[in-house]
């Protein structure tokens, strides 16, 4: 059914359709509308779940951990400082191989305090073992949650999935979305069938400590399964298209890249702006293309290489930075292209931090500076402010 709803509402409806048994919620802007919508759905009996109003994000993730360990599908959402606070629990959940879905609403990290959008928060979790998918628009956000549970609970994966969506840009904007029916989702996503769980009928110990003689092998296996999850991400994307008729690419998607000389790489909602800008470039005669990276973890090295094979220049645009290094995505793209006989120059532009808009002007600046040979730079800085520092 097509509705014009807020992005947060689209998330809530998608999550409701996935039939979580336990929802834990701690409020933090700009995630709040998601948990508020779910709360109303539970209060009205539309969604049959235990809604746990926890006292911190650390506990929000831990409640989900306990619920999934006991054999019930669980959900939570967070952003920014909340993501940082629950960080150790996120590592723990992935390490314990407990499948669940958390919406990572993308927001800048303090300090300074900022409630506005960038991707530093979910980037900070990239080492944790969570599968991370980035959505471009609200329809994709909605569909991605349904795909996420299917990916996480697959025996080949057994890793939690984070659906990343830009805060305010997607959470607080109204778009027309097609909401599937409960029957459609039930046919696509069966009930959670745990491989093992806490049950007096068949008791297990979960979370024993590992000595040096086996820890490394455990982590090796997690790495193997995480890398193998790439195929499951692709498979689920194909199955979703067959069942629901919508496609967003699997691990990545390309726009006008077939004959592109310069390919611009990014993740999330900025892709929409970049596609429009790309069309404007093409009007001017520039051979630009856009590569939307959808699956950041596991990182699809082979697919990226193939998509960038004929590019003469690659420009990575990201809303994150590793302070003291360069762009995070830029570094990973460079690493993915390393070792080939011919590698195009890869430029890294950091933009859009703390909610700074990325406009056509920003993208023009990015293009000019890359063409002038700059390797890594901040785009869209306010000149007067920088000069007065």
């Amino acid at each position, binding site marked *: 059914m097509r509705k014009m709803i807020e992005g947060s509402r689209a998330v809530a409806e998608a999550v409701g359709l996935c039939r979580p048994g336990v929802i834990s919620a701690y409020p933090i802007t700009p995630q709040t509308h998601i948990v508020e919508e779910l709360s109303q759905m539970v209060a009205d009996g539309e969604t049959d779940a235990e809604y746990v109003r926890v006292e911190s994000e650390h506990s929000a993730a831990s409640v989900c951990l306990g619920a999934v360990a006991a054999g019930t599908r669980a959900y939570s959402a967070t952003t920014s400082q909340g993501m940082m606070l629950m960080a150790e629990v996120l590592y723990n959940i992935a390490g314990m191989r407990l499948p669940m879905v958390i919406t990572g609403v993308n927001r800048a990290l303090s300090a300074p305090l900022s409630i506005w959008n960038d991707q530093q928060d979910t980037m900070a979790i990239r080492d944790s073992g969570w599968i991370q998918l980035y959505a471009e628009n609200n329809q994709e956000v909605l569909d991605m949650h349904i795909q996420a549970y299917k990916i996480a609970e697959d025996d*080949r994966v057994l890793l939690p999935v984070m659906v990343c969506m830009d805060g305010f840009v997607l959470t607080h904007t109204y778009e027309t979305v097609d909401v599937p029916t409960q029957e459609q989702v039930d046919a696509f996503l069966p009930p959670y069938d745990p*491989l093992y769980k806490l049950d007096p009928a*068949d*008791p297990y110990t979960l979370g024993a400590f*590992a000595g040096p003689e*086996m820890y490394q092998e455990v982590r090796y*296996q997690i790495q193997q399964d995480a890398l193998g999850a790439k195929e499951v991400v692709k498979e689920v994307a194909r199955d979703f298209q067959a069942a629901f008729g919508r496609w967003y690419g699997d691990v990545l998607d390309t726009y006008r890249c077939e004959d592109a000389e310069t390919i611009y790489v990014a993740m999330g909602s900025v892709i929409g702006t970049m596609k429009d800008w790309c069309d404007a470039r093409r009007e001017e005669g520039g051979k630009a293309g856009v590569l939307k990276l959808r699956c950041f973890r596991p990182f699809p090295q082979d697919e990226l290489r193939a998509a960038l094979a004929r590019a003469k220049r690659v420009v990575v645009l990201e809303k994150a930075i590793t302070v003291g290094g360069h762009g995070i995505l830029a570094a990973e793209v460079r690493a993915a292209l390393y070792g080939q006989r011919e590698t195009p120059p890869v430029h890294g532009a950091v933009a859009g931090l703390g909610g700074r808009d990325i406009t056509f002007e920003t993208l023009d600046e990015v293009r000019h500076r890359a063409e002038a040979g700059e390797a890594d730079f901040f785009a869209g800085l306010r000149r007067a402010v920088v000069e007065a520092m």
Partner: protein
Amino acid sequence: MTATAKKPRRKPPLGIITRPGSSLRNKTGPWGILRPVFDWEKCTGCNTCETICPEGCVRHLEKKQYEADYEYCKGCGMCAAACPFGAIAMREEHR
């Protein structure tokens, strides 16, 4: 594990689950050099020794016939010290 799986499921990932009671393979008996010896004549069957043993390796066969499982007994002496009737003595064990 689920009893109604239609296709065979994977093995649980390494190190994620540990079998209940697998500690029983770890015989802690060799830890200590003292062993409790029970005087059934003095015993009143109060069950203090069986209750407070940290290992849970003291049991009674009949009401006043207590013994320790030396495979797990660490020789801490708590049973002997706690016995209100002096019915347990700690003896050095020579193996």
